[in-house]
């Protein structure tokens, strides 16, 4: 079989995609944002641990609490999505398993992000279950 393509043509598009830097920077940016958010989150959990349903709803009705909790959830999910992606890429080398786990990772993070955001908005805007 004769291959009429030049070596350059065969290599084109197979090299560095140039996307790695974005992923790397996004991980750092989310980790910096998470430092204050997580410390606030620990404080919030300490407070919510002794709250009943009404107190928790009243707590989430505060715009500051609702927005910070939403940010904590979304930035955490973005951060853990990129972290778990690297873990899968490091340890799983079978193509289909890897693709499946990467999809599962993305879908779990997106699903829980949507559920958490909707739930926070619902409680904050309507004052609970009604």
């Amino acid at each position, binding site marked *: 079989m004769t291959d009429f393509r030049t070596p350059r043509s065969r290599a084109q598009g197979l090299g560095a995609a140039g996307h790695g830097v974005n992923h790397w920077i996004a991980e750092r940016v989310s980790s*910096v944002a998470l430092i204050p958010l997580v410390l606030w989150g620990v404080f919030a959990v*300490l407070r919510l641990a002794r709250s009943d349903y009404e107190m928790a709803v009243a707590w989430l009705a505060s715009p500051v609490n609702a927005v910070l*909790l939403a940010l904590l959830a979304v930035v*955490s999910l973005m951060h853990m999505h990129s*972290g778990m992606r690297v*873990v899968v890429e490091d340890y799983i080398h079978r193509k289909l398993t890897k693709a499946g786990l990467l999809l599962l990772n993305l879908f*779990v993070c997106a699903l829980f992000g949507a559920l958490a955001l*909707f739930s*926070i908005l619902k409680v904050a805007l309507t004052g609970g279950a009604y």
Partner: protein
Amino acid sequence: MSDVSKTIRARPTSPHLQVWRWHLTAITSIMHRITGVALYVGTLILAGWTIALAFGPEAYGTYMGLLGSPLGKLVLFGLSFAVFFHLAKGVQHLIWDTGAAFKLPLANAGAVATVAFALVATVVVWIIAAMTGAL
């Protein structure tokens, strides 16, 4: 002849999991990843809390009951340690990302500080929880 035999030393072995001499920076490095995976579950638990709250008083009561059970408290205790460990080690990684603090004494000091901060912060948080009646 005897001079030659004296100069022969043990050849360096290839770094591999079985022959690797564990040191603090390596242990805290893999712990960073392990706590990160643990916090994956922890974040889903946090998201579950918002969902339970949105479902209403009954679901919220059930969810809080689960978190307040002995097993739930054990999980939360482990997660609190994971939070503080991952936070401290993450800060060391951010410092490393600037290209600073790679010298061995500094790297080791950072690893010691990470473990110390994680242990102290975890204990402090649970003492506060006990004192404020959150337990």
